[in-house]
Each structure stands twice: as C-alpha cells, then as structure tokens.
C-alpha cells in the first residue's frame, strides 16, 4: 500500500517535470513566433511613420503655396483700381483731366507710366498664376497616386494631366466672360501683346479707354481665377490632413498593439524560464523522494 503510494508520488513528479519541460519549450517557441510579429509590427510602424511624415510635408508644401496665392490675391486686389482710376482722372475731360494733370511734373510721362502699370499688373498676375500652377504640378505630379482627379487616361494608360491649365487658361476665361468685354476679341488681350517691348509700346499707343477697361476687367478675372483655384488647394490640403490624421491614429493603435505583443513576448520568455526552474525543482524533489524511499526500505 505504502509502496503504491510512493510510486504514485514518483509518477506525479515525473509528470510534473515532463509538463514543465514541455511548457518551457512551448513558451520558448511562442516567444520566437511573437518576435516575428514584433518585427512585422515594427516594419508597419516605420512605414506608417514615413507615410505620416510624407503627408505632413505635403500638407506643408500645399499650405505654403496657398498662403503665397492668398498673399498674391490680396496684394493685387488692393492696388488693382489705382492705375485705371488714375488713367481716367488724367484722360477724361469730364473728370477734370486738365486740372488733374497739374499734379504731375510731366503728365505725359505719368500717363505712359500708368498705362505701363496697367499692362504690368496684367503681366504680373499672368506670371504669378503660371508660377503657382507650376509649383502645384511639381507637388501633385510627385504624389499623383494621392490625387487621381488630376489623372487622365490615354490609350488605356493613366497619365498625370496636371493643374497648370487651370492657372493658365486665359482664352477660356475670356470666352466664358465674353459679355463683360467691350471688344470681344481675345487676340487683342493675349499675353503675346506684352512681348517684345516694341509690341508693348505699340499696344500702349493703340489702346483706348475701352481696351483699358477690358484689360482691367480681364486682370480682375484672372485674379478671381487664381482665388478660386486657391479653394481647390485648400480642399486638397484638408484631404491630406485627413489622411495624415488617419495615419496618426493608425500609428498610435499599432504602437498600442506592439505594446501588447511585446508584453506577451516578455511574458512568454519569463514563463519559459519559470517553467525551466519548476522542471528542475520537481526533478530535485523526485531525487529527494527516491533517496527517502531507499532509506525507508533499509530501515
């Protein structure tokens, strides 16, 4: 009866040693597998961080361009009417032109400068619009996958179409607002009239009040077009900010997951060590039991 009990004890110890040896192996393997997951999570976190940085940089680039555009719109609008009003005041008899001319040292030169300023404002807004369009194309073309609306399909192949035409579409703007012009001929107001200098001088001599009215109106329409396109940039900025926000949420959630996985890994490693110790402990207890049994037999 006593021997059967002792044997039972020995079997229990052997089973415990076996159990903890196996569990040590299982925990060890689990730690190895978790290590793989941690590696994958780290790769995902690094990729998310890179994406987030890209979005932030993209948003900042768009913000700079939009801020530049807003500044251009504001500056051009503030000065826009000065030249035309000055022109009216020194050319229109009904506006006391003779009296007004007396304010200038050389009224003819002043008139020349005013006309040149009217042309320069038109030229300036054209160049600035074109610059903004180019800057945006530079940004969008490098990130075309984020802006599918600027892509076009040619022979089944998707190509970047760009936004430049939205900023440099003088003829379209002119034709869409034809009713606002006195002389409904775009060629009269095409940018070509500004170059070379001889052509420009000729324009200054040949343009009459209605032409200057039209050119002023056209400049205002170009500023409006620039302003309207600013809204598109703001929308894209908002879209990129939303993507960045999503990436940031993803990043924090992945870090949280990594935290849990890392906890599991540490637990597995420590449980493996703990199992090894317990396995050794029960082995020692088994030895102790064997010695005690042999002592009992002798007695």
């Amino acid at each position, binding site marked *: 009866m006593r021997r059967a009990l002792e044997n039972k004890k020995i079997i229990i110890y052997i089973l415990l040693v076996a159990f903890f040896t196996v569990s040590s192996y299982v925990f060890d393997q689990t730690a190895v597998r978790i290590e793989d997951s941690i590696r994958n999570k780290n790769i995902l976190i690094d990729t998310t961080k890179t994406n987030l940085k890209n979005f932030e940089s993209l948003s900042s680039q768009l913000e700079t361009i939009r801020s530049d555009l807003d500044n251009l719109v504001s500056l051009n609008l503030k000065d826009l009417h000065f030249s035309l*009003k000055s022109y009216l005041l020194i050319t229109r008899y009904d506006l006391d032109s003779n009296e007004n001319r007396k304010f200038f040292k050389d009224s003819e030169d002043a008139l020349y400068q005013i006309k040149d300023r009217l042309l320069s404002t038109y030229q300036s807004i054209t160049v600035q619009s074109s610059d903004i369009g180019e800057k945006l194309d530079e940004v969008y073309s490098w990130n075309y996958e984020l802006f599918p609306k600027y892509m076009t399909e040619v022979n089944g192949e998707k190509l970047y179409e760009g936004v430049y035409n939205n900023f440099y579409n003088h003829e379209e703007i002119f034709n869409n607002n034809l009713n606002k012009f006195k002389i409904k001929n775009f060629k009269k107001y095409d940018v070509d009239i500004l170059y070379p200098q001889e052509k420009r001088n000729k324009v200054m001599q040949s343009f009459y009040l209605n032409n*200057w009215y039209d050119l002023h*109106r056209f400049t205002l329409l170009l500023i409006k077009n620039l302003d309207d396109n600013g809204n598109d940039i703001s929308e894209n900025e908002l879209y990129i900010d939303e993507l960045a926000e999503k990436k940031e949420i993803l990043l924090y959630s992945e870090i949280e997951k990594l935290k849990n996985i890392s906890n599991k890994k540490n637990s597995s490693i420590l449980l493996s060590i703990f199992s090894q110790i317990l396995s*050794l402990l029960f082995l*020692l207890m088994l*030895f102790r039991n064997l010695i005690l049994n*042999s002592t009992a037999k002798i007695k």
Partner: protein
Amino acid sequence: MRLFRFSLLKIYFGLIENKNKALKIINIGIFLSIFASTSAIITYFIEKKINEKEFLLIEEQFQAKDNSSIISEFESIILLLETYNRSEFMQTENAFFLSWTTLGSKIISENDFYAPIIYTALKDTKELDKLFELGIEGQNFSESIVKLIEDAWDKDEVDKTKEIFKNFEKSYETIKKIDINFYKSKIYNNSPELLFDEVSSKKNNSLDYNSNSKIFSDYSAVYEYKQNTIIFFKRLHMILRATLAQNHDSIKKLNNEIIDLSKKENRLIFLTFIFQLIAFMLIQIFEISSMNIYKKEKL
C-alpha cells in the same frame, strides 16, 4: 533510454552511503530552485512595468516631436502674420497719406482698399473653425487649454491667458458676422463703369480715420481681429513651449525609472541564473555519479 537512466538513478540512490548528506544537498538545490522561481516572478512583474514605461516613453517622445513641429509651425505662422500686418500697416499709412491729397482722395476709395483686406481675412477664418472644433470632453478649445495650464501656471498668467482667449473669441465672433460673399461680390463684380462712377461722384469715399461707413467699421473689426490673432497665437506658442518642457521632464523621469528598473531586473536575472546553474549542477552530480556506479558494476 530515459527509463533505463531512471532505474540507474533508483539503484544509485539505494547505494548512497551518506544519505543525509545527499538529502541536504538536494534540499539546498530545491531551496535554490524555489528562490530562482521567486526571482523569475519578480522579474516578470518588473519587466511588465519596464514595458509599460517604455511605451509611455515612446508616446511622450511622439508628443514631444509633435509639439516641437507644431511650435516651429506656430513660429512661422506668427512671423508671417506679423510680416503681413507690418506690411499692411505701412501700405495703409501710405494710402492714408495719399488720400489726404486732392488727386489721391479720388484714386483711393474705401471700397478699393478695405474690401480686399476684409475679404482675405474672412477667407482665412474658415481654418479657425477647425481649431475651435478641437475641444476635449465637452469643453471648447479655449476651456481645454486653460484647464491644461490651470494647475501648473500662476493665477495671474492663467487670468491673462483667459483674457487673451476671450478677446480673440470675441473679435472672431464679430468678424464671423461679416458677410464674406458681400465683399467677394463687391470685389469681383466691380466693373470699370462702376469705378468711373466712383471717381466722378462728388461724394467723398476716400480713406478717413473718422469714417462712419460700414466698410470702415468692418475693416476696424478685421484689424482688431488680426492683432488679437497674433496675441492668441503667441500665447498658444507659449503654452506649447511649456508642454514641450513638460514632455522633456517626463521623458527624463521615465528614462531614469527604466534605468532603475533595468538595474534591478539585471541583478535579479543574474541571481536567477546562478541559482539555476547551481541546481542544475547538483542534478548533474547525481547523474554523473549514478553513471559511474553503473560503469563500476559493469566492470
């Protein structure tokens, strides 16, 4: 093979002469194993704590990085706003000076000068709506920020912050009531004919510091709003700097805590290893001895 070795062990323990000595050694081994398991449990909890602190550190580092980039963004915004305001102030001064002359008063009207300033300022406020949506737990943005500094800052500074926020919100609410579309239409639907009417009109609509017109009142509201915006952003910048300093303090504290816990853990792991090694060696002594007896019997 295992069974074979186990029977050898049984024989060996039966043959041991000084069984008490053997039992003592085994007991020491058991004691060491138990000690090692205790160390493993302690290590498990310390490692868990370290892991949590490590992730808190990562979060704190992320926040510090975010705050740092927001601070530099704020610095650029403040610099930009101050530059714009300074340049606008100079332009306004020049425009006022010009408007004091007979010709100048006809060239520059309130509509020409103020409408673009009001329009562009109102356009920018759309972004601020997003800022005010950023409230936490039912509190609006300002309340959340004030709560953040309430316990850490002097009462005077907290009161000053509250006042700055109140002034900003008040001026923001005032300009929000201004109809942006009214000014947009005023700017872009302005025709040369209307300009002619304006110039020919006997009514004085030139720039005047004492003007009672609606547009001057709106411009004054916008001017006040712009000044308050700079003060508001400067205060937010100050708060962010304080938050960043707090982040750095937390990072330092967490680093020290991790180092301390790491040291503790290292010591315990070392002890665990030593005890495991001793326990293992004790088992090995018995195994080797049992093998030797088996060999002697064979000979």
